[in-house]
């Protein structure tokens, strides 16, 4: 079997890394040896007919998107649904397979009495680099007491939080828990906690922009493609729902590229960043610099 020529991307330095901060590895082949778990993942996440992905395929996808690294997010719904679609140990397993390309985020369910210990272990023993929470699925508001101790641990370890904000396609989700305005008090009371509102908290995009422009510790990612093509939807997001100038002038240090893959299309979304009419320096921030700052801390 022979193939036509293909262009490999050249290696890059840390400064020009392109990072996808929002990737769910639920269907990566190395963690899908058990058919029962794979079926549970399809049902719990509401993603079907996609099969499992060999790491070689993931790397091909990254190369075509121009991506250097991915944040892999664990998902723990042990109280909300009685299952853990992607455990912290599975994320750690994947990170160990490609430590130069994968950065692991822990998942815990805030209503789980063991959540604090799980998170301490994820940061302390497994070396995971952030926390992933889904208020709409796990049924908590960002300021609820069940989540406060988790934020304490994140601050103690200097680890950021990725919140699934706004609409979610997952079953049994309620968007109101992840409405951006619900995060304002968290941003105000914990200025040392960096957190991201995935998908700009769509459809409350202006609300997300309001919280972000007030609080530099609040980030948003681009992981939304609820209608139309990547070209059409992201163009609309960055030119109608948000003025391009808002991002280019005021929010440029707080927006990160995220795809919410495999829900949405990583390659086409990544390619759109260069076509939004933003300054080149802003695009560079969105592609990687902001993600590194989100991960490592504000200067």
């Amino acid at each position, binding site marked *: 079997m022979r193939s*036509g020529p293909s262009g490999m991307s050249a290696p890059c330095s840390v400064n020009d890394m392109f990072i996808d901060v929002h990737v769910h590895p639920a269907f990566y082949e190395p963690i899908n040896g058990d058919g029962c778990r794979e079926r549970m993942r399809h049902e719990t996440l509401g993603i079907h007919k996609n099969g499992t992905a*060999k790491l070689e395929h993931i790397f091909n996808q990254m190369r075509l998107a121009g991506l250097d690294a991915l944040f892999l997010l664990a998902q723990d719904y042990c109280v909300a649904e009685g299952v853990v679609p992607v455990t912290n140990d599975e994320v750690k397993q994947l990170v160990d397979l490609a430590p130069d390309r994968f950065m692991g985020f822990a998942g815990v369910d805030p209503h789980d009495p063991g959540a604090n210990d799980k998170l301490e272990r994820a940061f302390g023993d497994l070396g995971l680099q952030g926390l992933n929470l889904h208020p709409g699925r796990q049924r908590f508001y960002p300021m609820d007491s069940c989540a406060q101790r988790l934020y304490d641990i994140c601050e103690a370890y200097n680890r950021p939080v990725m919140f699934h904000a706004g609409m979610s396609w997952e079953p049994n989700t309620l968007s109101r828990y992840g409405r951006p305005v619900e995060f304002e008090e968290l941003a105000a009371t914990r200025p040392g906690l960096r957190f991201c509102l995935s998908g700009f908290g769509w459809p409350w995009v202006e609300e997300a922009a309001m919280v972000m422009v007030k609080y530099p510790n609040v980030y948003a990612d681009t992981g939304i493609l*609820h209608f139309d093509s990547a070209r059409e939807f992201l163009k609309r997001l960055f030119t109608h729902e948000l003025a391009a100038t808002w991002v280019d002038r005021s929010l440029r240090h707080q927006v990160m590229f995220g795809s919410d893959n495999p829900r949405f299309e990583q390659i086409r979304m990544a390619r759109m960043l260069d076509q939004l009419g933003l300054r080149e320096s802003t695009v560079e921030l969105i592609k990687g610099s902001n993600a590194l700052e989100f991960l490592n801390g504000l200067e």
Partner: protein
Amino acid sequence: MIDTTTRTFLTSEYNQFVNITDLVSGAVAESGVREGAVTVISKHTTTGITTNEALECLESDIHEFLAKLIPEDHPYAHARVLKDYGSTAGNPTGHLKSLLMGNHAHFIIRDGEVDKGGAQEIYFCEFDGPSERTIIIQVMGE
């Protein structure tokens, strides 16, 4: 006799021509059929199977030709979230290119070999890669 096999492989590009002539010839040889026919079929809807001359310049021309007929930035109705997949259908161009290219090729087997012209090679056409793809090769004869 009828001998049916499947082959699964990864494609590495968004649009890609993969020369599968050796795969098909190998399946014919393994079947032991001396006189008959072979069919190769793609199991997918955003791929194609075709026959052409395996030249880099032609691959480029065919890619450009298809891209002009089926541009990426057209407002396709298929660009939307499919609820039964739970994910975006961002691949209308792949479906339309597949429509033009067809999903199979037939060849006659003579003296135990695929009887094809000197310039003919068999291509698996990827139009929504990278992906894992499966083809079926069926050899019929005696």
